[in-house]
């Protein structure tokens, strides 16, 4: 009975522990195994060495996908944070109709991209969307044709992704701003410190944890960005907007090249590991001292 009492917390965690062990780490192990086989349409389990990885690294399409992940990931995270922070600070200035604006900024997060993809496709298409509209207003030389230029198309993916997530980041930051101790701010105002300085020297530094939360949410979205590409460009023009997730999906499910898909998944997982583990380390370390 006493044993039970003492071990309740562990027992509560046990189901999650087992589930995560099997359904996350077990599956990663499974993927690692399959990546070493010649699996085609369905998984096979005879090991065959690192051939799939050799093929993967020789594939020009995979290069493009990885490059895109870096470009997309970096821009998406940075721009979303900047816009989110800016909107949060602006909204924090006792704005009228704050509720309405906040809802407008936040709603894209509620929509799946299966839903908004077609609309974005039209908006960004030069012949149908913004470019055509602005030209219709008389600005004949206006150009916004990123969607159709292979070297620029990845940036349109960034635009749509920022559209979706920046409102959410705004919410995170707004929450952060609201919970900064108002006493300190008032004291600073009494001392005649300009608003700009109050933000840059007092408020923003206290929000470090928020930046980390925002980062983890955005990084998670960036790595899983899949629907977005499928809906907006389907990887095109050519395969200029391929991302690792779409590459993997194409190999696994449209091409019946499962071994190759598993190999790409493993590389993807390693990238995630390299980004997330330092974050988790820095996030969890201080509490160990408590």
């Amino acid at each position, binding site marked *: 009975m006493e044993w039970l009492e003492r071990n309740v917390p562990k027992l509560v965690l046990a189901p999650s522990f087992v589930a995560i062990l099997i359904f996350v780490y077990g599956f990663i192990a499974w993927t690692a195994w399959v990546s070493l086989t010649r699996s085609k349409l369905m998984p096979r389990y005879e090991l065959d060495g690192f051939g799939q990885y050799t093929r993967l690294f020789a594939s020009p399409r995979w290069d493009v996908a990885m490059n895109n992940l870096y470009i997309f990931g970096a821009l998406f995270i940075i721009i979303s944070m900047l816009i989110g922070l800016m909107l949060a600070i602006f909204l924090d200035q006792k704005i009228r109709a704050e509720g309405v604006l*906040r809802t407008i900024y936040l709603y894209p997060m509620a929509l799946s991209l299966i839903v908004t993809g077609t609309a974005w496709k039209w908006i960004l298409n030069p012949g149908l969307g913004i470019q055509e509209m602005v030209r219709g207003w008389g600005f004949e030389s206006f150009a916004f044709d990123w969607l159709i230029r292979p070297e620029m198309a990845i940036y349109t993916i960034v635009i749509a992704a920022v559209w979706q997530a920046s409102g959410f980041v705004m919410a995170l930051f707004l929450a952060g701003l609201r919970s900064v101790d108002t006493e300190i701010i008032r004291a600073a105002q009494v001392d005649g410190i300009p608003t700009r300085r109050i933000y840059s020297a007092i408020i923003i530094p206290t929000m470090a944890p928020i930046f980390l939360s925002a980062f983890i949410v955005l990084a998670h979205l960036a790595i899983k960005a899949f629907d977005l590409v499928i809906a907006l460009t389907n990887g095109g023009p050519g395969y200029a907007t391929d991302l690792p997730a779409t590459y993997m999906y194409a190999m696994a499910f449209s091409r019946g090249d499962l071994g190759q898909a598993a190999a790409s998944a493993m590389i993807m997982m390693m990238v995630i590991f390299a980004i997330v583990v330092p974050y988790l380390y820095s996030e969890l370390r201080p509490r160990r001292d408590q």
Partner: protein
Amino acid sequence: MTSNTTILRWGLYGILILFALFYLLPLFVMLTTSLKSLEEIRTGSLLALPRGLTFQPWIEAWSSACAGTQCEGLRPFFWNSVLMAVPAVMISTIVGALNGYVFAQWRFPGANLFFAAILFGCFIPFQVVLMPMARMLGLMGLAGTIPGLIFVHVIYGIGFTTLFFRNYYVTIPQELVRAAKVDGAGFFRIFWSIFLPISLPIITVSVIWQFTQIWNDFLFGVSFSGPGSQPVTVALNNIVNSTTGVKAYNVDMAAAIIAALPTLLVYVVAGKYFIRGLTAGSVKG
């Protein structure tokens, strides 16, 4: 007020409204398209306002568009999504709350490592888990059923819900728990009478997050549902996609908006609480 600050305020509003327009643009396109006739879409500009309003596409999308040989619109599938999302959100929130409570207040050696392991699970790309998961669901006899879908969503939702609750509960002083223990209260008793009553804000966050993720999910829905258990996103995809047939964009857009209504509603109604919950939970975490 000096004229300088007035100009600043106007600029502020200007920027905020400009951004609002940017965020609204896709919704505007979807809404206007859904109110046009097909003829007008084929001939007119896609971004223009409709010349003549028609609500036919909405009616069709809800009750008569074909998603396969069944031409009953989105209606029958809506219920599937509700049956899937509600239990999945509830279970994953409860599990997350208990996990978070343990991680925040009942630490044991190795707990941090385990927490990190759970968090890393948030990042696993779902495409990776499809095939082994299909096999597991088959072995468990849950393949092609709504309980199967609930199971999958709970498993991959635990990571985030645990994170939310742990970050929230960690702000509560440990002395409180210690004092309660001295008074003879047990694990669940303390959770029930101290932690649960103050959890409303973070429950809101967890519910909104999970509901959005689960309602909008397509990949799991398409892989693990069977006939009769397909969620609304799969039906939407079936209505919208046609390989070699004529596309009815107006119906597609109407269907898309209908499918998104529950999540939209949640954000509009509960958005305020969402920010409040985040305010309460995330900062000090």
